[in-house]
């Protein structure tokens, strides 16, 4: 399929100019179908016509808000390149607290459609903040019953830390353009990560609701109320280190996809 696409692209490039060349028509009485017709195996067209295409999708959300009297800004973006079954996914998210970059990560994943509505994903994650760390990622992403967007990933750090992240969201249509999106995301650690003030167990929860207005599907400003807080042992460690455990923030942002 990939081959066919490339050939199609090549044909497209090659055919740049108009020529007056005439192709001789096949004879008016074509030969009846013979064995050779049978020998031709399934041919996707081989010429970039009726062949699989490679698609791209990118979704970017960025917002600005106030948390406990401080300015915060965050981004959350993801996208893919590929076909129906095989895709390359990329994801990045991060947060600035005031001028300080507090958290930043990037993931690169191979994604394969395994169930009707779900992909299995495997790849790498790199954190730049709060410290440099790399992880191997494995998980699933897709659409659960009741149209719940669902992600579940396990991260195995090269330094031995292991965590699981679950993420769900849902679209509630007030109108066909004004959409409320409740969301929840949580990290569960199987190990302690003292450098990050993380104790095993649930370490953080982010939940809230985003209200967006889709001027078009691809352009939607939004406002969001997000409650983000460290949990349990991680919260105690953070407090001990003199850090915030988090709280409620109001944000305004923009969601675009292309």
């Amino acid at each position, binding site marked *: 399929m990939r081959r066919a696409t490339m050939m199609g692209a090549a*044909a*497209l490039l090659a*055919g*740049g*100019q*108009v*020529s*007056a*060349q*005439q*192709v*001789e*028509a*096949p*004879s*008016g*009485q*074509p030969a*009846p*179908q*013979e*064995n050779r*017709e*049978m020998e*031709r195996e*399934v*041919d*996707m*067209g*081989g*010429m*970039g*016509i*009726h*062949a*699989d*295409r490679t*698609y*791209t*999708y990118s979704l970017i959300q960025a917002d600005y808000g106030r948390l406990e009297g401080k300015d915060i800004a965050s981004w959350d973006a993801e996208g893919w390149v590929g076909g*129906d*079954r095989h895709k390359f996914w990329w994801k990045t998210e991060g947060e600035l607290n005031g001028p300080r970059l507090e958290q930043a990560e990037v993931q690169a994943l191979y994604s394969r*459609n*395994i*169930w*009707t*509505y*779900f992909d299995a994903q495997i790849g790498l994650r790199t954190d730049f903040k709060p410290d440099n760390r790399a992880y191997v990622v494995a998980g699933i992403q897709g*659409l659960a*019953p*009741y*149209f719940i967007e669902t992600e579940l990933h396990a991260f195995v750090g090269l330094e031995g830390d292991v965590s699981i992240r679950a993420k769900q969201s849902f679209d*509630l*249509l*007030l*109108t*066909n*353009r004004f959409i409320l999106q409740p969301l929840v995301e949580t990290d569960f650690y199987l190990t302690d990560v003292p450098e990050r003030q993380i104790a095993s167990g649930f370490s953080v929860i982010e939940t809230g609701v985003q209200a967006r207005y889709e001027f078009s*599907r691809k352009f939607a400003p939004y406002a969001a109320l997000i409650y983000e807080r460290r949990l349990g042992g991680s919260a105690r460690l953070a407090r001990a280190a003199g850090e915030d455990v988090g709280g409620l923030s109001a944000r305004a942002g923009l969601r675009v*996809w292309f």
Partner: protein
Amino acid sequence: MVLRTMLIALFGLLASGVAEARTYDLVIERQRLEVEPGRRDNVITVNGSLPGPVLRFTEGERATIRVTNRMKERTAIHWHGLLLPGDQDGAPGFNGFPGIDPGQTFTYTFDLRQTGTYWYHAHSATQEQIGEYGAFVIEPRGAPAQRVDREHVVVLSEHTREDPERILRNLKGDAGYYNFSRRTLPDLFADARKFGWKRTLADRRAWGRMRMDPTDIADVGNYTLLVNGKPTAAKPWLELRAGERVRLRFVNGSAMSFMDVRTSGLPMTVVAADGRAVEPVLVDEFRIGVAETYDVIVEPKEDGAYPLYVETLDRKASVLATLASSPTARAAVPGARPRPVLLMSEMGHAMGDMAMGGPTPAAPGGAHAGHRMSAAMNGAPIAAARSDGTDHARTGSAAPRDTMTDQLNQAAARQPQPMEEMDHGAMTGMNHDAPQPRSTRSTPNVGEGGMDHSTMPGMSDAQTARVGGSDSAAQFCAPEHAAMGHCERQAAAPADTPMIGMPGMDHATDAAPPGAQPTTSTGVRIGTAVSQAVRPAGGTPFPTVNYGFGADPMAGMDMAGMGHGGMSHASMQGMSGMSETSGMSGMGMPALAREGDLDGSGRVFGWSSGAPYGARVLSVRDLRAAEPQRDTRAPVREIVVKVSGNMERYIWTLNGAKFGEAPPIRVKYGDRVRVTFVNETMMAHPMHLHGMFFQVENGQPIDRLPDKNVIAVAPGRTQSVLVTADEAGEWPLHCHLLYHMESGMMQKFIVATVDNPDGTPAAPGAHASHGAH
């Protein structure tokens, strides 16, 4: 604008000494054209126009058509519905046809062996969407069957300002990209007010569990409909004078839109479908699937401005043309129709597996199995029955007997109508105590009591068996039976369809004049899609409409196909398989309302709903070949084509496989086969076979089954056709919704004298039913 380069040349007799020849030159190019007044959009033109010129030929001529590609990409023109050698068919990748490279000219040559209304269109990427299409008309050599004073070709199509490749990308990114009619929170409250919270929430839960959207009527939006290239704003006009007999050759040349065609106040007599003559059927309106053609005759008694109003099923796009003697006359838009919303019950068997919930792992090694809708999972009813590759169609028929009765019972239990309204035919099927030979199990027609059909000349069991579980006794009375006095058709066909306003609809429908007599005086049959003249007491605001786009397999009443000799054992096995996989549990699904009811927000339930009581509407069941079929043999095997997909990811498949993922379907030259389309999706799919007509098993007598080349299969429905494989070649079998085809909904259908490359005989079940496993 480019000069019109169309040349028509008439040569003398060719060396062959038989065919006259007519030659056209077609030039394909991209340009900006003013389709909508006041703006220029990127389109593809054929000889500078959109649509392309009407190509007119006479039966028996040799057509020579030189197609020059002046675009920077490859293209291909396909001659839709024509009988021709495979390498002239114009589908790239088939029969060695490579497509037409940029700057090249390809000369198509073929002899015309048929008459009627056809069309041509790009069969290459998404080029068809933006203008690469036109009508293809073949006049009979002798006297025409229908003498007319005037004729118009009416090409219905869509215009979009978007790049069609972008449309496909948008759908892949978000399958609901163009649907701005989804059910909202206010709709939830409105439904709860009307139906109660319990039922409303049960309904929402059921759809949510399936991850399906009942408002998904059309995939693509932002269309402007065109009549011969003109939107409403350009005031399309078709000349018509009182006293004339006028033929309108309708072609649905759109990429994605089923359309409802109405000529208010000017009844139409359908005389041909997909190019083939049919016995006349009088209608006020018809639903035309993508790529279908219909010829109708209109005979205006008085001068006036008659509207030709065409709208898409989601009611988002429409076009009004005026039929009048003067170009300045302007007809008024007839009453609006409500937007449909799908009913859970329409999903038929497809919802069965859904009830089991949860994603199911793909079969090992069947990489793409995961793409299929859940309905196809775990045992995929029909496929499972055939996965051993043997030809069940020819094996014994005793085994599934009891299961079949169960199915009927359960199906009947699911019918929303009270028992006294139930189709008697179904009850006959249900109440068998002892096994009987199937030939006697046909369903007596409703309203005919215990009539013995065998005494009625020319009426086979198949004919009287009625498809469609929604037919109730009160509803169904075919005009021809009425004429025989077997039943009373109350129908009456008002001269005009009542105006229906969105809010006060319940009252508006009562406006249909009651009690007029059926129009049988001239012997012309009346369209039967709507069988009720007036709203009965306790009836829904809108009648159930049976367009004949397949039968509900779970209603268990598709006896039409079963009455024939080569009966589809496979489908019966499929049904038994279904109950094993608890498919029937789906029957317990909450039905929020009946077909024809309105939801809390004024939408009408049912894919086919919307036409008012008393409207004379064409059903595919009404189509009866004007000439007897030459081939009435029983099929030697059945090829089941499961029409499936994953709407959320916009992946569309046949038998679970995208084009190229499964081996082709192979049919031996000269064989007669039944192809049964099982629609497991919630969209209607116009299924098209190149190179040959098929006979639609629509309940008409076997020798009068209508020829078609496109058959629409409604959501959750099953429809079978008979193919006489007398055209050798590699033929595309595909859904004619452009973006479905481009997303994989196509299969290669090979007709050849040799079965397999290695000389072994074909193993019918192997490719036919389930390539994915």
